[in-house]
């Protein structure tokens, strides 16, 4: 399944089961942001070990519709906050194996500071606001991954900084 949502020019959000090609994604981002001076990207991979459990399979469930909508909103917030010309998010769902790519965020801007900050902001908010849920299967059986307080703290940091 592939879902694409273009909220405004320069924003691309995809939720898909298929793997993605990082080089191709960066190329697309560059072509959508001609003349920009910086692209920052983040690629997340499935961990081999999580909290002392060996992970064999990671299954990602999501809320179709709300997922795309909430990621688009997060990216739109980032573009309102920093001078971003183009931004893309790809997030995979379904069954993944350790080492598999799970998420990609790319941000193009005139300057590195905005590109770094917007990319980090999108990841921090994505982890705490987009409706995805991870379930691990491994050496200690099957279990839903718990939300981390550290992720909430990282996301809350942006509200403090934004309030200044």
């Amino acid at each position: 399944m592939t879902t694409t949502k273009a909220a405004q020019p320069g924003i691309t959000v995809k939720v898909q089961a298929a793997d993605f090609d990082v080089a191709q994604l960066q190329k697309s981002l560059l072509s959508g942001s001609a003349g920009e001076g910086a692209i920052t990207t983040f690629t997340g991979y499935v961990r081999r070990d999580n909290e002392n459990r060996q992970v064999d399979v990671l299954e990602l469930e999501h809320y179709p519709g709300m997922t795309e909508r909430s990621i688009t909103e997060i990216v739109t917030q980032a573009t309102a906050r920093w001078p971003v010309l183009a931004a893309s998010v790809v997030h995979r769902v379904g069954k993944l194996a350790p080492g598999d790519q799970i998420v990609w965020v790319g941000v193009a801007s005139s300057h590195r500071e905005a590109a770094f900050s917007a990319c980090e902001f999108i990841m921090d908010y994505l982890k705490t606001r987009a409706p995805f849920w991870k379930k691990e299967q491994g050496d200690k059986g099957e279990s839903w991954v718990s939300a981390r307080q550290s992720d909430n703290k990282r996301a809350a940091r942006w509200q403090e900084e934004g309030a200044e």
Partner: protein
Amino acid sequence: MLTVLFFARVREELGCASLELAWPEAGLDLDRLQEQLCCEHGDGWRDVLTQDNMVRAINQVVVTGNSALRDGDEIAFFPPVTGG
């Protein structure tokens, strides 16, 4: 008609992914909908739906506290998110 969706651990614990309810003439809010589900399905559902960290969304937007509902709304119950 109301559509109610359950995701992840909540879906598994209830053994239910979605259900539809007729819209009551008298109207409904989120807390009363939750109470109605608990009454209809028993204490097992009450234990799950009243968990401290339960997230509730109306029409794909997370809400905090109670909120009025309208005919045609899509309501969702789910645990804290863990993507990325």
